[in-house]
């Protein structure tokens, strides 16, 4: 290789290596876009964050890209939702990432000092009485979709702050300052969304997948059933017939379709029952301009209100 070309390559490689390590930044990988957002807010200038899920896919189905392996290998921390929701990609990636600070674990998904599990301290709903697969693809530790409720944002942010402070104690005060600033924005926003969602209280609805427990608790919507026959098992004609009957009997006029599921079944259900469909994201970035936790939460509440025929107060 000629000398100028060699120098150019060497310079490029060393620049790449120096980018994230400049000014002692922690390299963090976060599994979902809203975790990327919250980590950036809490970590501030001290972190450089890479994401994995794009936001438009089902969290249970994120593609395992080898490019994630190199990011995890170099990472100082991995931030994840936990409760096994990332079982289809995070375990496999950690297993080959050769990062001794974050190892794949069959129970907790990630084990080691660099693992920041955002589910710690979350009041987990829908803990199954039985984990038999005859009930579908259950999450044995409970419903992991707590990120869909705005009032879990503060707990997520606190877990991230605690995790970053554990890994980088010299910046603990800065993380706590950032956390305080973020909570000062997030908590009033959550209260505002709760006020907006008050109009939804008591409404009955169905969702495509069983992931609305926390959003249901936040809004007061009673999600009575799912389009899926069982979690992870697609609808059968018999189940849909029963569901139509149930919706008519109970006056269900709201269908929450998670953005990544096909629209036809919910449209058919809506036509049969006179219900309206609210299309929701299960992660930030499911829709344009929803890359932050706050915007993701706002968009979902707005979609529910519109479908329920309620005006924004």
């Amino acid at each position, binding site marked *: 290789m000629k000398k100028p070309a060699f120098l150019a390559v060497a310079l490029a490689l060393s620049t790449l290596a120096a980018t994230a390590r400049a000014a002692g930044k922690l390299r963090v990988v976060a599994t979902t876009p809203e975790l990327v957002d919250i980590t950036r807010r809490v970590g501030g200038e001290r972190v450089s964050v890479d994401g994995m899920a794009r936001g438009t896919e089902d969290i249970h189905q*994120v593609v395992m890209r080898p490019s994630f392996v190199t990011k995890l*290998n170099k990472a100082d921390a991995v931030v994840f939702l936990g409760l096994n929701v990332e079982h289809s990609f995070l375990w496999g990636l950690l297993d080959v990432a050769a990062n001794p600070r974050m190892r794949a674990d069959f129970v907790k998904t990630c084990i080691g000092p660099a693992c920041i599990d955002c589910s710690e301290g979350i009041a987990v709903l829908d803990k199954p009485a039985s984990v038999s697969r005859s009930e579908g693809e259950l999450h044995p530790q409970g419903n992991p979709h707590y990120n869909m409720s705005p009032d879990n944002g503060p707990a997520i942010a606190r877990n991230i702050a605690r995790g970053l402070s554990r890994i980088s104690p010299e910046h603990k005060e800065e993380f706590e300052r950032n956390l305080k600033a973020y909570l000062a924005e997030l908590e009033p926003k959550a209260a505002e969304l709760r006020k907006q969602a008050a109009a939804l209280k008591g409404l009955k609805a169905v969702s495509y997948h069983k992931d609305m427990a926390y959003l249901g608790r936040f809004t007061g919507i009673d999600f009575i059933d799912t389009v899926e026959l069982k979690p992870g098992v697609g609808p059968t004609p018999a189940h849909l017939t029963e569901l139509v009957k149930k919706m008519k009997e109970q006056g269900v006029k709201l269908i929450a379709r998670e953005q990544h599921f096909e629209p036809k079944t919910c449209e058919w259900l809506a036509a049969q029952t006179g219900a309206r469909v609210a299309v929701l994201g299960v992660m930030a970035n499911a829709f344009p301009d929803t890359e932050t936790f706050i915007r993701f939460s706002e968009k979902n509440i707005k979609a529910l209100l519109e479908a329920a025929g309620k005006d924004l107060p």
Partner: protein
Amino acid sequence: MRMALLILAALLPPLARAQEADRLKAIEERLNKLEGAPANASLSSFNPSLGVLLDVNYTHGKDDKGTFNFKTAELNIGAPIDPFLKGWAVINFNPAGVEVEEASLKTTSLPYNLTLTGGRLFASFGRLAHFHDDSLPVTKRPRSLENFVGGETQADGLEVQHLFPTPFYLTATLGAYNKLGGENGRADNAVARPLDHFTYLGRLATYADLGADHSLELGINSAWTPKRTMVEDVSVTGSPAPAISTVKGTWRTLSGVDLTYRYHPAQGGIYKGLVWATEVMQNNERRFDPGTRLPLDRVRAYAGLSAIEFKLGRQWRPGVLVDLTEDLDNPHTLTRTYTGFLSWWPSEFQRLRLSYSKATNNVPGSRENHSVALQWTGALGFHVHGFKDR
């Protein structure tokens, strides 16, 4: 009456406060009990992850005859051993008996991005070659893999992998084994051998994202066996002792390139898109007469496969696989196998697959071999998505 009401009004707040304090104390006592409770788990209890895979099929083919096959009941056990090591075993129960398909130890905390795996493992050669039968996109293992690799890349030995500290994914794997290939009859795992009779593997693998929805993976590898000792079978040749022992010029290389293109649209996750995988292998070895075990010429033969699997959603996956395999002794004889398959996944843990295969070769007078298979697979217990099998 007024006095009684005044006394009551004066006493109520302290009563309420006392009740509240009692309630708080009761909650505190319950919390202390919970926090102080001994753990339910014990280090002496055997708590690995456990899973069983059941695979059965019906095949109908040659001479218009069919058979139900119990292919396998595969028991998977895995657990961390300590902070530095994990282990797993795959025990295969099939019509031929019970076989330890894998039993390996793998490091989890080595420095310099190194990972060491040892024991009975599936060597890192190619892509489909190290897939278990149930993970293949087709019902029957492709001929190129059966003939050139010797089934799955099962090997007793040691592998070390290094993940390069580059911005892009790049790994190098070196391995040393008794032999490579579970059905490889060239060597016996139970027989000790000199160092130049082991099989040594080198592999490089890399990956590139081509935008958000497309990706390409490339692997290149070669398995080298420096020497092999073949002793003439005098009971067949009738030659007087000593039997001719051939070692010189018996080196073998099995080399390959594998290229995998994936399309994974934003909305589909792992259930939408397509996977197109192509692998080409070259086998270069001195062949031996199967009866007399006397040496024949050195032969270079080629084989390859190309498989495309469409992911139409959670349930349906159609695809085709084309396999071209030269005969190891006579590369002029080429067998072409065309397979079409349709898989239906009622859930992530159950699969039904229908496949049709047509095999032909260029030997004059040879017949086409048609077969239809219906495969049914179910997985019990522990379930994770592994990186190597994606």
